[in-house]
């Protein structure tokens, strides 16, 4: 019996992983070989997907990217024995792109069947909860604080402080809410984790629950992730069966269960207070802060609301220790960050490393430049509200403060690469347009400002009063930045202003060179 691993991750499926798995099964039957196909999450080496891994002598040998039509040839040349082939990549752990990473949060993702509790246990699953139960609630919060964990959703708020505020709130109903509304273009780490290692997320939420005195958890996942939703539904049933969730979890005195709440298409619901409104059944309109959700959150009760990656990091902190976690990183950004390389990049995928690598290393060495082969012109860091970085800022280390110092943000860890055919005035217009489409409408700078922004950039692009209108856009950006209620209106100026600052030559009548390039 030979075990063969093929990803069931949505991105792997989008390029044919299901068809490859079927072809492997069919070919094995045809040639009479006894195999077992294990469907895993993805390793995150997406330019190599669909990737096949074959277990040979306890190690996994990889082949990719495989098309269904390659399968017959792979079998014929001895893939089941790890033989050489044009698509062979060698021992998977030795692939430099993977070897260079520090996979903590994603250690099991791409390795195990996400719906096998036994696989989860074998690779350390459950140990974090065990330790949390043995050291007690206060000590868990102390560990999280000491590790220096900050919110991975984008805001970078210290997680330990949030948890302590909820723990110190008077007894009564409290909630753990997991923000899985990963709406930023260029980000897919939450999706990969939910599809590839959902039990880790549940374990982390249970730890948060026992630490702050909450027995009810809610995962708010966006509807654009049907595969993640399906996997988590199955995983919740498994976790209940194995008593990771439910009454008296892991034989302790704590009860903790999770409800999956699916969004309905709204970017602004990724903002924590809009998300709470949405769970409560209303329009996803942002609430004014204070009060903070830690004091008055879901249904007015104290609520921990954390991103998927933030919660998942807690399991590492508890198994490896706060000091070990804190020893990784850069400046005030501690631990690892699963960075997501997307868009026009040759080596696209998920790359988990300690903070501190420079943007240039990430794009030129890890990503190896563009997929199109043309020069990199700009990198948008941190989703649709993130700044566009030119090559001249490639020395910026990957760190919350360093990015902020350059008028940008790391956000949820997405990096979207653009080649030299991009028209940055068009991208600035899109940022305003996106804000107009997704604005919740509660505050004026965001609701009206974004539409005025689109109109004014249109004037600039058609050559109408370019200088005056650029000044007007800059003024508008200031109003939005300082006058908006939340990050949607407040951060839309980042992509717009960075495009204006670093790529001023693109603002004016649409250049003919771009039409030629298209």
């Amino acid at each position, binding site marked *: 019996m030979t075990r063969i691993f093929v990803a069931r991750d949505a991105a792997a499926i989008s390029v044919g992983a299901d068809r490859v798995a079927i072809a492997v099964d069919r070919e094995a039957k045809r040639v009479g070989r006894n195999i077992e196909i294990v469907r895993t999450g993805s390793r995150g080496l997406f330019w190599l997907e669909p990737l096949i891994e074959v277990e040979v002598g306890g190690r996994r040998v990889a082949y990719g990217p495989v098309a269904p039509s390659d399968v017959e040839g792979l079998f014929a040349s001895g893939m089941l024995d790890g033989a050489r082939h044009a698509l062979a990549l060698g021992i998977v752990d030795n692939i430099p792109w993977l070897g260079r990473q520090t996979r903590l949060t994603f250690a099991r993702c791409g390795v195990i069947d996400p719906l096998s509790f036994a696989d989860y246990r074998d690779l350390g699953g459950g140990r974090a909860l065990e330790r949390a139960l043995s050291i007690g609630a206060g000590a868990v919060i102390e560990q999280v604080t000491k590790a220096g964990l900050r919110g991975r959703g984008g805001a970078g708020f210290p997680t330990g402080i949030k948890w302590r505020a909820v723990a110190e709130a008077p007894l009564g109903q409290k909630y753990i809410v997991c923000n899985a509304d990963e709406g930023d273009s*260029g980000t897919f780490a939450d999706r990969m984790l939910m599809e590839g290692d959902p039990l880790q997320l549940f374990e982390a939420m249970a730890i948060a629950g026992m630490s702050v005195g909450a027995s009810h958890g809610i995962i708010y996942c966006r509807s654009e992730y049907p595969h993640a939703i399906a996997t988590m539904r199955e995983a919740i049933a498994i976790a209940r069966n194995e008593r990771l969730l439910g009454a008296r979890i892991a034989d302790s005195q704590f009860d903790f269960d999770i409800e999956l709440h699916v969004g309905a298409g709204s970017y602004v619901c990724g903002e924590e207070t809009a998300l709470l409104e949405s*769970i409560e059944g209303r329009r996803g309109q942002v609430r004014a802060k204070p009060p903070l959700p830690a004091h008055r959150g879901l249904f007015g009760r104290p609520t921990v609301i954390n991103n998927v990656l933030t919660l998942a990091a807690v399991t590492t902190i508890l198994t490896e220790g706060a000091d070990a976690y804190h020893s990784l990183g850069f400046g005030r950004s501690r631990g690892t960050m699963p960075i997501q390389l997307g*868009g026009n990049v040759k080596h696209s995928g*998920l790359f988990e490393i300690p903070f501190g690598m420079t943007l240039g290393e990430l794009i030129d060495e890890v990503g190896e430049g563009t997929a199109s082969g043309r020069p990199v012109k700009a990198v948008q860091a941190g989703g649709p509200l993130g700044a566009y970085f030119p090559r001249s800022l490639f020395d910026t280390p990957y760190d919350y403060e360093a990015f902020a110092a350059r008028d940008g943000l790391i956000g949820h860890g997405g990096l979207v690469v653009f080649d030299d055919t991009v028209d940055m005035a068009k991208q600035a217009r899109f940022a305003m347009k996106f804000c107009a489409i997704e604005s919740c409408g509660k505050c004026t700078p965001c609701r009206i400002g974004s539409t005025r922004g689109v109109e004014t950039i249109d004037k600039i692009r058609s050559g109408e009063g370019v200088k005056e209108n650029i000044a007007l856009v800059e003024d508008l950006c200031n109003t939005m930045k300082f006058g908006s209620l939340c990050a949607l209106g407040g951060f839309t100026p980042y992509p717009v202003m960075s495009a204006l600052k670093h790529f001023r030559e693109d603002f004016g009548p649409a250049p003919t060179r771009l039409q030629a390039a298209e």
Partner: protein
Amino acid sequence: MTPDSGQNFAPWSEDRVRAIIGAHASNGASLLPILTAIQNEFGHLPEEAIAIVAESLNLSRADVHGVATFYHDFRRAPPGRHMLKLCRAEACQSMGGEVLAQCAMRMLGHKFGETSGDGSVTLESVYCLGLCACAPAALFDGQPVGRLDEAKLQALLSEFRS
């Protein structure tokens, strides 16, 4: 998940609406899951359903209408037999997503947010499917398709339109 295609949608039934509300309300669920379940049943949110939901949950029709129009997923008219949701966000833009969007409109003969005259395909914009490492990407009847180009899109559409 109900596949995002119009083939299996039920005809209007007030009893079904009340049954859906009943099933969800007993779990203490809120408005969003109820509206989602109604849309999964009928393919859209019929006006009659809005009134029944409002009455059952003791909300005003304006409240329910407000929620139904806030979220992009909710439709007020039935979709086509197939649903193409093409990603229009930055990562897909960087890989020629906008050229592809123009192709899609040309192939189908209509704009985004519309359904073809023969009722075969509804074309919608979506802002990120988390498939940014395999851009440009789309969901076709709920199935992810990545590394799209004009030829792949043509093949996909002609397979299902014939």
